[in-house]
């Protein structure tokens, strides 16, 4: 069948690429492992500045055009970081025309409701209280890949790498796959 080649390309392209941002070397290693064990490609950086550089938005040059191999499907960032904190990074991403569709998840060891609200209002998809659990990563991954399945079944020629742009256009009413969650799920779970 002529679609056989396309199917295998789609399978390879289904690997989500997550950019993890955290100033703690311990947390970076931990989150990286959670993501890899969940079959995600991971790039882990230590600061908001580094994250922006990686995303091609370092202020010196314009956003670089689609380097498909490095496309980021999800950004997970710590909130408390020296220099640019997670909230400031979130703002910069949402202010960028090329990056604003990438879902951003905030991680924090502190469950402060005003902080949670501020992040969600600024466009964060979720606020996860640390330590992050494997179930958090699996949930995020399921949400991100769910939107893509529907689209590919409709059009087998769309074997592009999974990107937030694809997800955004495949959703019916909302621009974010995370809108499938009810509002409660966005609230951090109470840690025992």
């Amino acid at each position, binding site marked *: 069948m002529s679609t056989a080649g396309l199917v295998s390309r789609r399978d390879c392209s289904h690997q989500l690429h997550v950019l993890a941002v955290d100033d*703690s070397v*311990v*947390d970076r*290693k*931990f989150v990286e492992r959670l993501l890899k*064990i969940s079959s995600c490609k991971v790039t882990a950086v230590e600061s908001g500045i580094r994250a922006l550089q990686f995303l091609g938005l370092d202020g010196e040059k314009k956003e670089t055009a689609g380097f498909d191999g490095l496309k980021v499907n999800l950004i997970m960032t710590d909130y*408390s970081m020296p220099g640019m904190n997670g909230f400031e990074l979130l703002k910069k991403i949402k202010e960028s025309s090329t990056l604003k569709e990438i879902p951003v998840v905030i991680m924090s060891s502190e469950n402060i409701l005003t902080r949670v609200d501020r992040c969600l209002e600024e466009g964060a998809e979720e606020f996860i209280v*640390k*330590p992050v659990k*494997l179930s958090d990563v699996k949930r995020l991954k399921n949400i991100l890949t769910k939107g893509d399945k529907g689209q590919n079944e409709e059009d087998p020629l769309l074997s592009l790498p999974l990107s937030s742009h694809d997800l955004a256009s495949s959703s019916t009413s909302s621009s974010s796959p995370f809108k499938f969650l009810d509002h409660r799920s966005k609230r951090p779970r109470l840690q025992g």
Partner: protein
Amino acid sequence: MVWLWLQGYLDEQFIQLEDLQDDANPNFVEEVVTLFYGDSARLLHSIEQALESNPLDFNGLEAYMHQFKGSCSSIGARKVKSECTQFREYCNARNAEGCIRTFQQVKQEHATLRRKLETYFQALV
């Protein structure tokens, strides 16, 4: 068996770390713990130095301890974490003596856990 012995010192986060270890990554827990001790030595040193200044910079101390506590949380260091919480309470109350006293407890628990974990990893070999 070993877990019972470690139980007071570690919480379920440590079990999560163990669950992330597999044949392809057989030393994951030890690697994380090693990173933790390397990183925390730096933070504890900074706190120690900061505790020598007069007057104390409580905001600075709080910031260091926040980082340290975060790392403790990531490896499941239950007792160390609880001493950190105590320390932060004294910081917030601007209680210098309380901070200095509690910091000794933090260092003690940190060292005790290290010894226990070293024994634990040796037993696994």
